[in-house]
Every structure is written in C-alpha cells, then in structure tokens.
C-alpha cells in the first residue's frame, strides 16, 4: 500500500464519520472510502476499524443495518445518526481550528516574533 501516513491518534473516529456521511457503507467500504477521499494517503489498519465502528454505534453516532454486499452476501451497513452528523460537524470545526493554529505556529518567522 506504499507511501502512506499513519493516522494521528483520535482521528480514526472522525474519518469514519466523514466517510459514512457520504453514504451508507459496510466495513470494507469505509476503508476504501477513507483511502479514496484522502487521495490514498491515509493508512487505516484494517482490523482496528471494527472496534472503532462498534464504539461509534454504541455511542449512538452510527447505526448499523444488515444488507447485501456487492459480493452478494450479508454485510452490515453503517450510516450516520442525527447525533453522528452533529458530532461530525463539531469535530470538523475543532479539527480546522487545530490545524489552522498549528499551521500558523509552524509558519512563524523570526522577524514576526
């Protein structure tokens, strides 16, 4: 899978919420969607996805429904709940504030100090 970045701790939940917000997905689909929307740049450890998915379901941010996969077998599809949508919005704002702050800190030059 090549030249990819490891996820920062705590960002997996955010990425899952984002991926699922674009349409219901099964577990493997979440993985593909994250790879797709990150331009194949982010590496999610495949097994680690499931504990995160179940945790989000338990927190009421996702809901799961059994459906049929493209493999024509039973698969669990995840989609956002209202609470999940709200959480995604909050976390996206929080993330943008954080990256903006870190970006400006890292861009600081000696003459500006």
């Amino acid at each position: 899978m090549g030249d990819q970045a490891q996820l920062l701790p705590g960002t997996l939940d955010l990425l899952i919420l984002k991926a699922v917000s674009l349409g219901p997905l099964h577990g493997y689909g979440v993985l593909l969607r994250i790879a797709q929307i990150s331009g194949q740049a982010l590496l999610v450890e495949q097994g680690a996805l499931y504990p995160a998915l179940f945790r989000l379901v338990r927190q009421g941010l996702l809901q799961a429904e059994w459906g049929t996969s493209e493999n024509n077998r039973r698969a669990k599809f995840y989609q956002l709940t209202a609470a999940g949508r709200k959480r995604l919005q909050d976390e996206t704002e929080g993330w943008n504030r954080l990256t903006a702050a870190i970006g400006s800190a890292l861009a600081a030059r000696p003459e500006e100090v």
Partner: protein
Amino acid sequence: MRIAVWLRSAGTKFLRRDALAEELEEELREHIALRANDLQGQGLSRAEAERQAKIEFGGVEKFRAQSHEALGGSWIELLLADIRYSQRVLRKSPGFVVAAVVTLAMAIGANAVVFSVMNAFVLRPLSVPDAKSLYELQHGNEASSYESWPNYIDLRDRNHTFDSVIAWNITSVGYDEGGNPTREWITEASGNYFDGLHLKPYLGRFFHESDEHGPNSAPYIVLSYDFWHAHFHDNRNVIGRVVQMDRHPFTVIGVAPPDFRGHYCFSIRISMYRS
C-alpha cells in the same frame, strides 16, 4: 432498581453473546472476502489473495477482543476469553511452562525454607531457659525419635546423663468447652515436661511428675498463652474449669508463659499441654 436494570442488561448481553459473536465473525469474514476479491482483481491467485487479505487485516484475536469490548461485552466474558487465550498460548510452548513452573516452585520453596529457619532461630527462638542444653534422643539407626511409653519410662528412670528426660507427642483432639467442639492441636506430655524445661507458669500451676500415678491419673491441661487469650479473653478464672477433650474431662490448671510456643523448633501452633 438500577441494579435490576443492570442485571437484566447483563443477562441479555450474556444470552445475546453467541449471536453478537457470530455477527462479528460474519462481518470480519465478509471484510476479508471483499479484500481478497480486490487483490484477486489486481492479479493475485485466489489462494494468495485470501492469504494476503488475512495478513493485511492484522491480529484477528486482538481486534476480536477489542471489538467485543466496544460492543459492550461483560468483563466476565473478556476474562474467560483471556483465560482461554492464555491456555492456548501456554499449550503451544510447554517448555516455557515447565521452566516457569519449576522456577516459581523453587523460588517459593527456597523462600519458605529461609523463612522457616529465620522464624525458628531468629524471630522466635526456643523460649526455654538454657535452650543449648536441650537434646532430642534418637536411636542411632532410626530416623524417628518415637519411643514406646515403657521404653521412655526405662530411659527416664535409668538416666544419669541428663537433668531429666521428658516425653511428648503432638496430636489433635476434639476440644469442647461446652456445646461447640473444635479440632485443636495439643502436645501430650509426660508429667515432668515443664519442670524438665525449667518453665514457670504464667497463671495457675503446671503438672509435675508427682501428679502421675499410672494411666489417666492426671487429667490436667495447661493452656498456651495465645489459646487462653483467644478463647478465654485473658479470663483469670479459667483455672479449675473442666473442658472435654475427645469426650474426656480435663481440668485447666494453668497457662504457659506468653513466649513459650512449644519446645520444638519448627513448631506448629500448639494450643494446650496435656499430662
């Protein structure tokens, strides 16, 4: 109320446990199958694709446990799963298990020996006057120092070497001071036991050689200080009380000194001294 709700939810979880586990397995299987399809599409053989998909997925057992936890599995299930997992791992490396068990056994054994010796000689030395002149008699070719009573009488009466020769035996009896029999360890002793050890009673009196006039002539007991303290709460009126040992009446005549815990080095807890 809250406990009832918790119990019900725990109960449901337990019943649903198999269903949840089965769903989890199905989901993980499907994931690996889909990944294998994609890898096959990239030109791998089916078998190689499936192998690769499993490798990419990572430690199934670890994620299974984490998933179970995330699904709200109870700690008992997780504990059982951990126990099963450790059994499996240990079974795979019997050499390690043997080495670990032997190491632990030897370490515990060595500690126990060191402690027993320290306890006997340093922490609780033999608390009789002139302990250095106390000897145990033993036939030269026998490992045991048991003697028959008539043999002891002969040894005692013909003794010119020692100050005195005492006989003793550690045994357990059914002890009853009224309605609630318990099993207690006692030392059965010859009449000259305390005099031979040069001990003075803490309370009351000890039995003497002069109390002995044949079998069952001296139904007396002396309590150890600890036993007196625990069972009679330091009651000084205990002297003269009659208690039953193996359904025979014995009269309490005294209490031994606090630091006397039997004359034997590696002593078990001795409750009473019976003549």
